């Protein structure tokens, strides 16, 4: 089924306003294929019918199903390369300079909603590479949290499939990944820098203790929250960052209208939020 440009734009605007996620026009074809499944499941005959359903009383529930269809839950190593480049090229040296001046040689990074650990371990590999240069004699702490205990167990185990590791640059793969019977096993050298624990981002009593992070990543989670919860959670992230810290959301996500304290800092292929 092909949807008209008008229908596509209407749906895109709706998803953007409610979820804070932008659908690029290059993904129109993808959206169409996923939309068909939801239209069949709900009995909506036309795109307009489906749009009306999203706007109705039952809309919030249906939107969750649609978002599940259009956001793939699978994650993988080195997923958002522009963000990683920005961290390496600019943000990390900048943070290190500030902390060096204070004589505080400890780096703390939080992968919020860490799932099976790919993002946290990607960061660990990148930082590990700088142990002899920029981060010589630094303490590195990477914290991964998720609400789901099954994925936390997977993360702690550190064993991945071919899909997860396909984007790892060869240099890192040679050093930190060992293949065994079709599984890819992460080196203990990387694992020792990361701790994983269970955390519900809605839980205020726990969130206030996640302190003094230099960088926080929270990709593809806030899109599921309603505006009020989103504001509350983002305010926690803001409070939990060091004054010179940065907050990253997923590709195509937006915090516009959610928090007016963060400043956008742009770099090739993306942007980050600065405290």
């Amino acid at each position, binding site marked *: 089924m092909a949807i008209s440009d008008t229908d596509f734009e209407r749906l895109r605007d709706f998803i953007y306003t409610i979820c804070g996620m932008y659908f*690029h026009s*290059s993904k129109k074809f993808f959206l169409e294929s996923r939309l068909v499944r939801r239209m069949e499941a709900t009995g909506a005959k036309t795109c307009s019918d489906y749009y009306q359903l999203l706007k109705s009383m039952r809309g919030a529930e249906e939107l969750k199903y649609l978002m599940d269809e259009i956001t793939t839950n699978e994650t993988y190593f080195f997923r958002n390369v522009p963000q990683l480049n920005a961290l390496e090229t600019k943000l990390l040296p900048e943070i290190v300079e500030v902390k060096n001046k204070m004589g505080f040689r400890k780096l703390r990074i939080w992968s919020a909603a860490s799932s099976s650990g790919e993002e946290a371990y990607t960061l660990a590999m990148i930082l590990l590479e700088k142990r002899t240069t920029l981060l010589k004699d630094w303490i590195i702490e990477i914290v991964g949290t998720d609400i789901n205990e099954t994925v936390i167990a997977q993360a702690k185990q550190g064993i991945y499939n071919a899909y997860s590791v396909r984007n790892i640059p060869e240099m890192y793969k040679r050093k930190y990944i060992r293949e065994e019977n079709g599984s890819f096993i992460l080196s203990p050298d990387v694992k020792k820098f990361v701790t994983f624990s269970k955390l519900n981002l809605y839980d205020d009593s726990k969130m206030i203790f996640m302190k003094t992070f230099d960088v926080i990543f929270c990709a593809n989670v806030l899109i599921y929250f309603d505006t009020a919860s989103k504001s509350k959670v983002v305010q926690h992230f803001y409070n939990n960052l060091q004054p010179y810290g940065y907050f990253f959301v997923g590709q195509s996500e*937006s*915090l516009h209208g959610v928090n007016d304290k963060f*400043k956008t800092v*742009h770099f*090739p*292929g993306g942007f980050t939020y600065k405290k």
Partner: protein
Amino acid sequence: MDRNALMEKARLMVAQIDDLPTIPAVATQVLQLLDQPDVEIEAVADLMLSDPVMTARVLKLINSPVFKPEHEITSLKMALVYMGLSHIREVALTTSLIEAFGDDTGALRLNAFWEHSFGVGMVSKIIARNVGYKDLEKAYISGIIHDIGEVLLSTYMLEPFGTLLASIKNRPTRLVDAEIMQLGTSHCEIGFCMARKWNFPAAYCEVIARHHAPAGAPLEPVLCAIVNLADLFCCVRGLDYGGQEWISFNLQEEEAWQILKKLAPHLEEMDIERFCYELDDAINDITALVTSLFGAKRPPEA
């Protein structure tokens, strides 16, 4: 560094080049004619017809996928009527620049250069509309020509410029700063000297000279600020000379943003994130435009 010293160095550099491309006199005359009130299309057509190369280019452009006429347009006057007076200025200028800079032997890939230039033109027009700047076409053209100085560096200073590009690869150094450091001048001053030689209108010369330092521009600081921001946004959304320059910026710290916010306070509420994502969507249009103008595909990555 002292602005005068940068300009003097640029002047010497431009003066030393014997075979600097020329812009057809007709193009400059067309621009001047279009600046007059109540100009007639016939008068513009007569003037353009005196340059057969430009006439051919205009017809090629009008029949390209960019304008998509239903039937092939074969006369210049029809072409001008079809595209409208506001587009003629742009077409006269760009066809001449393409003529002058059609040689893809420089350190920068020609298509990447034009994609950036047309991208900045398009984004300048969007920002101009947003802040209520009256002459959208002027903003568009300013964006297209802002970096002409780079072409000279890329073509005539092949070796030092290649070394310079290599030195900033994947580093957070802005190209203009590296140029001043390593060459003692920048594409802004060089472009200004070229534009003066070609008798470009003063406002365009100023944009070329001041698009990285809009605050002190004597004639049109707002126009310079518009192009400055458009340039920054293009550099972070894929229209970045094929990744030659790695830049980052905090919008709140940019003087251009402050200039424009003074003029249009509602910018404070602008959805910058969405603006960026919409620019991503527009990149295809830009690459299609450049491909149709040059009739060539993007060469493979080196």
